[in-house]
Structures are given as structure tokens and as C-alpha cells.
């Protein structure tokens, strides 16, 4: 094992897959000459050239379409959205083409394309640039949705995503890019399968589920709760579609309590889906209602004091856990 940051992990996955398979190419805004808006693709143009690392104009709908159409006939494009916020203008391509062509063509055309980029709030970029887009995409059959929280998962899942024959939504995080973690040594290949949650920390009192940035919030909350003698089992689903709810259900059968932490709004999405699955499959085991800590139901304000109240915080997670244990905060 060696330690690298999340940004490097994402890049390593792309570089390794592009070296392995000529059909893999990368396109997006500023991915080449500029070296990536968040430096994720740094050095890739120099390594692979303009044929395979393609700078696009600002045309998300258009280049998402190009990626899908190229995938139909055998390429395996990685399409970078500068941030997932801008995927909204390409939403129709993903919903109506990427996710549907395999089925609508009766299985004749596959769409092995990966859409990737940073998801969720960064810092003080206000309402239009702070979306967690996962609830929109997890709703769509025909897609895989990955939301890795650690460098190791980012690398292993992205490699799997590139090799998958279906369209993959790959959600990174601007605030995650600098996060460090262990990954397998160079030359040791790790492909992380979709639909397998990771138990980040075992515990006995409450099950905490989180992915993306809130995963780190949940881990901090667990650490702080441990000091008060409360033991949390922390589960990172890693992929939201397919969603490994069984690992969560099994954990809840042991802890009898569950708190889900997520960055998207309350209405719908993976958080709500997990609540539904847990109550259906572990109803008799629950000692408290399943609680969620999530973004407040407002557009993201610019003012930092308010932004901090909108996003899930360690304090809110700690409070929610205590509520499920019926202990005073």
C-alpha cells in the first residue's frame, strides 16, 4: 500500500485504463491544455496526445451526445463534466440516450461511457454551483451510479466503470480531491465491483450510512461519539446504483438503529430509498425511527455562516445518533 490523494487516484485509474485499452479516450472542458479545471487530468495530454485527450468547447449537451454516440460504436469515452452542476444541460442525453439505448434497441447497442466530475457543494459557490446531482441520476434504470469517498474506492471503482459495458455516472467531490488514503501499490490492480458496500468501521450501537463528502463527516461524528462511549458502525455504500442495501440491513439487525447522512435534499434520492428498504426489511429490529441528516431544504446560500447550516455537520450527525439512542445531546 502507498498513500496518494483522491485526485491522483482518479487520474491513475484513467491513465492505467487508457494505457490498457486504446478505445478509452477522455473529453471535456479544459481537460487537456489547461491540465483540468481541478487538475485531475494533469499531464494526461502530454502522455496521450490530442487524439485521446480532447478539449471540448462549452457544450455539455453536445459532447455528452458525442460520448454516447461514440460508445455505441465501440469507443469507451470518459466524459468529464467540469462539475456535475453543468450536467443538468446534458440531462436529456443521459436520461433519454445513455440510459435507454440498450433497451430501446433490443440489446443491439451498448453505451459504455463514463461521465465523471466533482459533485456537491464546494465552498461558497452559491446556489447554481453547489448541487448534489445523485438523486436525479439514481432514479434512472439503465445507469450505474458511483460515489466513492476515498482514494482507494475512487481508483478501483473508476477502473471498473471504464470496463463496464453500461453508462456510469461517477460522482467525485471537489472537497474530496485533496483527501489522502491508501491505495494498492503500483502494478497491483484492484477492480472494485459495483454493488458492494464497505464497512468502514464496525460498531454496535447505531448504523451510520454515508457516501461522498458526508462520509467524512460521519466518520468524524463516529469518532466524537466513541469518546462518549457510543459505538457506531459506519457503512459506505460506494455505489448508489446498484445499491447494496443488504449490508446496511444486516448491520441494522445488529445495532437496531440507523442514521443516514447525505448531501442532497430530503425529497427522494438514495437516503430516502435506504429508509424505505431498512423499514421494509428490518422493521422488527428497529428500536427507533431511521433518521436522516441532509442538506436543508433551500437553495444554497453564498454566505458562509448559512452554507454551514445547510450542509450536514458533525454536530447534526451526533445529535441524530443520540436521538436514535434516546439520550440527551
Amino acid at each position, binding site marked *: 500500500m502507498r498513500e496518494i490523494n483522491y485526485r491522483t487516484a482518479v487520474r491513475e485509474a484513467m491513465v492505467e485504463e487508457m494505457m490498457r485499452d486504446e478505445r478509452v479516450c477522455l473529453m471535456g472542458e479544459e481537460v487537456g491544455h489547461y491540465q483540468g479545471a481541478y487538475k485531475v487530468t494533469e499531464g494526461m495530454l502530454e502522455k496521450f496526445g490530442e487524439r485521446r485527450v480532447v478539449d471540448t468547447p462549452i457544450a455539455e*449537451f453536445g459532447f455528452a451526445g*458525442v460520448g454516447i454516440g461514440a460508445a455505441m460504436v465501440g469507443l469507451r469515452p470518459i466524459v468529464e463534466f467540469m462539475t456535475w452542476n453543468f450536467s443538468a444541460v446534458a440531462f*436529456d442525453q443521459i436520461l433519454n*440516450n445513455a440510459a435507454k439505448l440498450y433497451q430501446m*434497441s433490443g440489446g443491439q447497442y451498448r453505451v459504455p461511457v463514463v461521465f465523471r466530475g466533482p459533485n456537491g457543494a464546494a465552498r461558497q459557490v452559491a446556489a447554481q454551483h453547489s448541487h448534489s446531482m445523485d438523486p436525479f441520476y439514481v432514479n434512472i434504470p439503465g445507469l450505474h451510479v458511483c460515489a466513492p469517498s476515498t482514494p482507494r474506492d475512487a481508483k478501483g471503482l473508476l477502473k471498473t466503470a471504464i470496463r463496464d459495458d453500461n453508462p456510469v455516472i461517477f460522482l467525485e467531490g471537489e472537497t474530496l480531491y485533496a483527501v489522502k488514503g491508501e491505495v494498492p501499490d503500483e502494478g497491483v490492480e484492484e477492480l472494485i465491483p459495483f454493488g458492494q458496500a464497505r464497512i468502514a468501521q464496525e460498531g454496535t450501537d447505531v448504523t451510520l450510512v454515508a457516501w461522498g463528502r458526508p462520509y467524512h463527516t460521519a466518520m468524524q461524528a463516529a469518532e466524537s461519539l466513541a469518546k462518549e462511549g457510543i459505538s457506531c458502525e459506519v457503512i459506505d455504500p460506494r455505489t448508489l446504483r446498484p445499491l447494496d442495501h443488504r449490508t446496511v440491513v444486516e448491520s441494522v439487525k445488529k445495532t437496531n438503529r440507523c442514521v443516514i447522512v447525505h448531501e442532497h435534499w430530503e425529497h427522494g434520492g438514495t437516503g430516502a430509498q435506504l429508509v424505505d428498504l431498512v423499514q421494509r426489511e428490518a422493521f422488527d429490529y428497529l428500536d427507533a425511527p431511521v433518521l436522516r441528516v441532509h442538506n436543508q431544504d433551500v437553495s444554497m446560500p453564498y454566505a458562509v455562516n448559512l452554507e454551514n447550516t445547510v450542509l450536514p455537520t458533525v454536530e447534526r450527525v451526533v445529535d441524530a445518533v443520540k436521538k436514535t439512542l434516546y439520550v440527551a445531546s
Partner: protein
Amino acid sequence: MEDSLLLKKDELLTLYKKMFLIRRFEEEAARAYAQGKIGGFLHLYIGQEAVAMGAIACMRPDDYFVTTYRDHGVALGRGMTARACMAELFGKVTGCSKGFGGSMHMFDRPNNFLGGHGIVGAHVSLAAGPAFKAKYMGEDRITMCFFGDGATNIGGFHEGISLAALWKLPIIFVCENNQYSMGTPISRTAAQPEFWKKAEGYNIPGFRIDGHDVREVAEKFKEPIARARRGEGPTFIEVVTYRYRGHSMSDPGKYRTAAEVEERKKQDPVRIARDALLEMKVKEEELAKIDALVEEEVADAVKFADESDPPDEALMHSLTLAKTGEDPYA
């Protein structure tokens, strides 16, 4: 027009047969629709047959084709069997898309036909994809992309052409200007009714042609296709045409007069091709023989579609996600 300048007799015979097949196929589809055997939308291509066949006449089998929901003509023209096409309309598992696409979503991978797209303009961006792939892999295959006059107003149209022009992709953008988008005439949708002029804005060649004579369409498509194959980039072709039927089966067509439609029918592309063949001294009996074969093919397709089974639920669930690495079409 002279034989020497344009298509040879055999070529025109082949095109005529296909155009007559499209015509008769769709007339029977309309009948089946009225009988409730076909559901949903059914957008007929009747009146526009020469556009698809003129383009297809200049294409190689390994070239790609992407079009709109008005897709039966292209599907049959590119080589889909009448059986697979009709069975798809009937929602049967023997259809080209196994009954999952229907009228608007015909696909035929062996014939490099990439659909059959229902969102106006979105496929113009998608179509730049196969062209991107051809260039990336160093292949000299071209992509043919059809869309309507109405599609020129939406972003997907613009972004697709803009990217293809920038990257000099081997693709032909064809605006089938049939004068209407649904019930709205171009006078109320387009500030610039000469759509071909948009090419200038993308710095690619563009021109306008009439779409009722398949010989002329074929002639005008040759050079743009050769140009794309040479790696010199896209061309924008506006083809002026007319649909004789409503936008779809549910359209009574109250936005245009019967006189207007009758006037346009004087330039029926199927009849023009037939007359041209007679002028080329093809015997009436020979044409009658071809016509009879087409009638047989269409009747057989209807019977086949009728007798086929619908898809089952297990197939439905297996078609949501592909099993990686197990592509039976590869």
C-alpha cells in the same frame, strides 16, 4: 435528366423498388394502426422517400445512419427486412428492437443503423459520436444524420454541428425540410427559412436541393460524402420535401389545405422514379413484376408480425443493463 449523368438503370431500379416498398409498407402500417394493431405514435415518411434513398444510394454498408422518429424509410432503405420492421411496429419480439422501441426507435446494428430517436435535435449531437469514432480509429466511414426543419431551433442541433465542424468529423447533416414541424409552418418557426444558410455560421459547406427526384438527391450527395471520407469535414444539406400524411397518425392536418397537399403530390417521388424508368425503356411489365414482389413482401410482413409473439417480462428485465463482455452483436 440524362442516364449518363445520373444513376444507371439498374441502380434506379433498385432505388425504385425500395421507395415503392417504403410507400406500400407504410400504407399497410397505417391500415394496421387504424385496426389497433399498432400503438403509440406512427410518423409516416410518405412523400419523402427520395430523400433517404438518394442518400443511401451514395453510402457504403459500413457507414452509419442516425435519424429521427420518422424512421421506417431509413430502416428499410438501409436493409432492414420488412418483417423485422413491421413486427417492431406490432410490438413483437421478432421486431428489429424486440418490441422495445416501436415506430420511433428502430435500430439495426448489422446495417449500421443507429436509430430512430424521439427527442427532437438530441440525436444530432449523438450522431457526431460515430463520426468521432471513425476519425479516432482512422476509418473512412461516414455518418449520415437526418433531422427535420423543426429541429434546427433546438440546442442539440447546434451543438452537434458545432462540434462536428470544429473537429472536421466525417458526417453529413441533412435537414429534411418538409415545411412543417407538426402543425407549425416554417414561417412561424424560423427567422431564417433557408436552413442551409446556417452552415456558414459553422464554417462548413451547405446547400439546398429538391428532394422529390431520387436521381438528383443521389447526385448531390456524392461529393459531400466523398469530401467527408477524405477527412475534410461535414456538409450541411437542406432537402426540400413534403409529407403527404399528417405529422403522425393522430394529426388531422387542419393547418394546411387539401389543395396544397394535392399540388405537392404532383411531385410524388415514387411516381417520378417510375416514370424515369419507363423513359429509360424499362418495360411496364418489368415494373409490374417488381410491384408485385413488393406487395408480396409487405403482405408477408404483416402476416409475420401478426403471428409473432410479444416480448416477455424476463426479456424486459434482461435489457435494462448489458452484461459486460457478452455482446452477441460484436
